């Protein structure tokens, strides 16, 4: 058992990062460190790294993710303002106020694998929706379908693009999902893998001090954005390379150009959606502009949340995600906060 623990301690720490208010895309740079391994689901992590402010709805969302962490996991709160109000999930978290939380995360990882004490769940273990309701089986839908029997919306039939009225599945994802801008939550209705309807919602990120270095401009901002986009496309190694460049300040223009070349060769631009949201622009063209490290690429204009939501209808789920991410601006302002 001790051999096992020693091995586990030295492993790259699997971290699930939740970006809150005032974090920007700074946490994306953490994947540059080979001692950390970013994971896409809290179930795979030993450490939950909460970066920034979590108040109100963001705090509630963090509580839910906290309870999805395996019961031996540890929580680290990376914040510029440790005295701010914190949600229950951060009550027992290690607080870290410095610029680089890698050591704190590693310490938490070693603790989590060597003395696995059960972390308490912060939410009551009860279904968020009562099981009783309409329907033959009291599940809340019609006949044997639909409803939210165990807090999970069930399928219900509706028309689709093939002219069949097949089951559709409503789901709500975010705001900490890979590929969603900070504080953005998506409510979508899917049929198979195709989005039928989608609505974007920007949760309130709150006011307060930002993490040091959260704001980035120019090529560094583009590289942060690119690193997340690359992870979304399954190119983890290239994402790590982009994050390393960003962390080094994105000063080496030749290295940046080499990364851009590798990204073009990977076929990522071709894999991205060409469904336009704004006149003459689509996810692919916005990716291309980022790859040129074009100063206008960031898109300082606020995300037109309702127009994006409409544009997602009819797209494959992965296309929908990249469309949303293509609108993520790198600065602090919540991208979806202002809908025109």
């Amino acid at each position: 058992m001790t051999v096992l623990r020693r091995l586990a301690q030295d492993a790259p720490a699997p971290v699930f990062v939740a970006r809150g208010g005032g974090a920007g895309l700074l946490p994306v740079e953490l994947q540059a460190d080979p001692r950390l391994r970013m994971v896409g689901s809290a179930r795979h992590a030993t450490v939950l790294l909460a970066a920034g402010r979590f108040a109100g709805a963001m705090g509630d969302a963090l509580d839910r993710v906290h309870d999805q962490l395996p019961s031996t996991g540890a929580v680290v709160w990376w914040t510029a303002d440790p005295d701010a109000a914190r949600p229950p999930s951060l009550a027992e978290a290690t607080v870290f106020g410095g610029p680089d939380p890698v050591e704190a995360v590693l310490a938490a990882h070693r603790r989590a694998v060597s003395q696995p004490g059960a972390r308490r769940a912060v939410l009551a273990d009860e279904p968020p929706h009562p099981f009783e309701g309409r329907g033959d089986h009291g599940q809340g839908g019609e006949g044997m379908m639909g409803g939210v029997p165990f807090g999970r919306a069930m399928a219900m039939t509706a028309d689709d693009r093939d002219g069949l009225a097949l089951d559709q599945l409503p789901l709500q994802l975010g705001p900490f999902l890979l590929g969603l801008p900070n504080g953005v939550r998506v409510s979508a209705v899917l049929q198979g893998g195709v989005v039928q309807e989608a609505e974007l919602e920007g949760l309130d990120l709150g006011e307060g001090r930002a993490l040091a270095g959260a704001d980035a401009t120019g090529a560094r901002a583009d590289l942060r954005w690119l690193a997340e986009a690359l992870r979304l496309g399954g190119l983890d190694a290239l994402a790590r390379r982009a994050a390393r460049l960003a962390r080094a300040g994105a000063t080496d223009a030749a290295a940046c150009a080499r990364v851009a070349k590798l990204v073009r060769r990977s076929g990522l631009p071709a894999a991205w959606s060409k469904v336009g949201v704004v006149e003459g622009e689509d996810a692919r063209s916005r990716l291309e502009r980022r790859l040129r490290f074009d100063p206008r690429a960031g898109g300082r204009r606020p995300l037109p949340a309702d127009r994006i939501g409409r544009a997602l209808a009819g797209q494959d789920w992965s296309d929908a995600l990249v469309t949303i991410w293509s609108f993520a601006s790198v600065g602090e302002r919540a991208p979806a906060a202002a809908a025109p």
Partner: protein
Amino acid sequence: MSNHADIWAAPLLAAGILAVGAYTVAVIHLAVGGWLAQARPGVGLLLQPARSAAVLMAQPATATERPDRAMAALSPALYAALAAVAVTVVPWSRSFSIADVETGIVLWGTAEALVIVAMFLHGWSSNSHQPLLAAYRFVAAGVSYLLLSMFVLIAAAIPAESLQLSRIVESQAGLWNVVRQPLGLPLFVVVALGSATWGPLDLADGSDVSGGTAAEASGIPGLVWMWARAAMLAAFAAMSAAVFLGGWHGPVLPGPAWMAVKTVAMITVLSAAGHLLARVPAERFVTWAWVVLLPLGFADLAIAGLGSLR
């Protein structure tokens, strides 16, 4: 298998080959990734898969709400067992393969087809949205490339006039299939990436669905699943070495050594493809699979057929 001892030895042998193979896959995957990320990985890399496995072993398995428990437990085991079945038909030298059955290729195809079932059950059983979504799109893609796999394998069987793998390797003594049927290996690589849900075809466990069918898996079940994926990739690498790269044929070195070298080369190619190529969107892949890849598979079969007429 000629006697009873073999029946008991076969699963152990298959598990042993796959354990080594899966570990090799993990190390090569990390090495290629580290090289591409310019992270200068050290010798510590050799231990890293074991370390990451230890993390999963130290973790408790999480439970979702109302899962299909039987299927959730069975599907990783089924997937691992399929990798084992697949690797039993691969011949390692003129005289040794775990089970050199007459219908080797069809048995391999059956294991491939059951992968779709295992993957679907894995995503479906956790009773969670993203795994279900991933499983669903995997089945759509899987049914599309399965035909491809049968076409290229049958094309490889034509010059050998047998479905038996050792005969297929034997038939490549003069000319390897990778030259004789140039379309075969690239198409088979597509099938390999899909079946092990790897790299550009990581549709079932992709990052855009939070780890897909494995999104809710942690602890030992998660470890078994990850191991089985790597083992499946290793089995495919060994199979392509046998069917397209001439198997044990080669100068100087003994047969098994050539197989090992070719298998490691194939693992490197597959791993590099995983790191260098972006994931294709499921919907467009299905279209490409039917419109482009399947006709190419036909062409491969036609080339093989014409070649054997001469």
